[in-house]
């Protein structure tokens, strides 16, 4: 894995780990949100520290994706507020937000046939003025992100001419060049084969060690437990559990919220808790 070149900090970007940056991450206060047909969150209060690696899990329809979309200000809460780094989320301009928060959607489509490198370059948009073109440093960042995900050979391929897994990697690369302080991912391992899954998880851990916060929506509790230091369990719009994977990934808790009783085990390498579905 190629480490990111730390000698050339991106333009206009404050260094990530200076004392001024050690502010609180997200503070969600009495958040309410409903879709037309359904009330999802009612007075949800939770905070996520700067630099924390958090996984968001729960059964279908629990509000996991909605939760991170609210964090990314892709949806507006109907009441309550979300504070990000001591300022309400709604006070940020879009570009300011994009310099700090990156979001990787579950599925991506591209109406125009950009190349992979052009797609990744778009991650530099928040740092560029309207008529400013991409600089060589932007290209360098895009290439190093592609390197990091081992998809450099795809750089000149059309984004619609590669596999959906590779496309997902390109979108993750784009979120890296945004140089965010927190990255929100919605089920990033969908469509990825085993080697790419491993690569993405390793890379997220690496980014996290560099100080980037990660909020990961995951269906698979096992990988969530492997990589995250904190698990938020949602069920029908309520935050029902909040704690370390070691304490949460237990048969009784899984049964309470998912309605299936798994077998408990350990990851042979890290010793972290894992669960297995009994099928007989």
């Amino acid at each position: 894995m190629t480490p990111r070149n730390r000698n050339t900090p991106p333009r206009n970007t404050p260094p990530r780990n200076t004392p001024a940056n050690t502010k609180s991450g997200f503070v969600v206060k009495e958040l309410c949100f409903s879709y037309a047909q359904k009330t999802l969150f009612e007075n949800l209060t939770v905070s996520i520290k700067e630099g924390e690696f958090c996984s968001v899990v729960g059964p279908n329809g629990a509000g996991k994706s909605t939760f991170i979309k609210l964090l990314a200000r892709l949806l507006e809460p109907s009441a309550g507020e979300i504070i990000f780094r001591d300022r309400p989320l709604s006070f940020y301009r879009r570009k300011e937000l994009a310099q700090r928060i990156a979001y990787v959607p579950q599925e991506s489509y591209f109406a125009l046939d950009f190349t992979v490198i052009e797609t990744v370059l778009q991650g530099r948009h928040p740092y560029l003025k309207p008529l400013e073109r991409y600089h060589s440093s932007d290209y360098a960042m895009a290439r190093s992100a592609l390197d990091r995900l081992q998809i450099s050979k795809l750089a000149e391929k059309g984004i619609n001419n590669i596999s959906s897994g590779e496309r997902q990697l390109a979108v993750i690369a784009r979120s890296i060049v945004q140089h965010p302080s927190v990255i929100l991912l919605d089920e990033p391992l969908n469509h990825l084969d085993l080697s790419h899954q491993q690569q993405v998880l390793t890379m997220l851990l690496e980014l996290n060690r560099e100080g980037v916060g990660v909020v990961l929506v995951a269906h698979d509790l096992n990988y969530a437990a492997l990589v995250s230091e904190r698990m938020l369990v949602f069920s029908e719009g309520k935050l029902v559990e909040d704690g370390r994977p070691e304490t949460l990934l237990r048969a009784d808790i899984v049964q309470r919220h998912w309605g299936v009783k798994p077998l408990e085990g350990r990851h042979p390498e890290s010793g972290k808790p894992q669960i297995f579905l009994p099928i007989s």
Partner: protein
Amino acid sequence: MRSNLGWIVLVVLLAGLSLLALAFGPAGLTLDSQILASRVPRLLLTIFAGGILALVGAALQGLLQNPLVDPYIIGSSSGAGVGVALSLLLGWTSVIGRPLFAFAGAAGALFLVYTLARMRGRMSRLSLILAGVAVSFVGSSLVMVLMVLSREQLAQIIYFLMGSTKVVFTPTKLWVFAGSAVVSLGAAGWLVARWRSLDILSTNIEAAESLGVDTQKLTTEVFVLSALLVGVVVAFAGAISFIGLVVPHIVRFIFGPRHLRVLPGSFLAGASLLLASDLCLRGFAMATGVDLPLSVVTTLFGVPVFLYIMRRRLA
């Protein structure tokens, strides 16, 4: 490399066609100051109309994510049509009157589409298309009514609605045109400045927002600027069809999808295409004495090119 060559070809083509348009006439290829005085305004109007229509078409196709979008889909040209028909019916056909009525009609349609497309304070791309199409249809039927009412001017209205740059320029009208053109080029520059946002908009709207694109603001900006630009073009040259639909496809074919190239490239290619069409018409008029409207040529040329590109893209 390929894109550099593309720029050279486009610029040389436009320059060559411009020279030809200035020199070409009943007396063969001649250039003298008296002839120039009458041909330069027509040349400038043709370049302006073709370029702006193509550029707006490219911007709207990018905004609405739809390769079949034509600048006229947002309704302002049919509004302009209503304005013109009304001006003929009322007899307000002075040199300024008609463009003014046309532009007022376009602005009215813009306002109507904008109001209809906004739902709960937000404007979605789909609602924009729907409102645009609805207003276009209402506009077309209003024009029909006005045409029936003003029977004598029927031919004039039809002629206008199909576009022509054979316009008689009085000094006043020339000044009005020059002023509008300068303002319009500014607006076109504004659209070009949004190139990266338009690029990014080709992905999921949520991804675009998270990359720092204010999609609401962008949609409003591109829509309003496009509608005004189309209004100006229609006011002076009528509703010329197909340029705004076809040219962006040709340009993307040469330059790839980046709007930084597609928008200015469309301006150059659109201007050239309309100049070539106008030359055909002038040739035809000299041979037969009949003035055809521009849309006849642009459509006859546009349809095969369009089908060719679409088939290649789908293949």
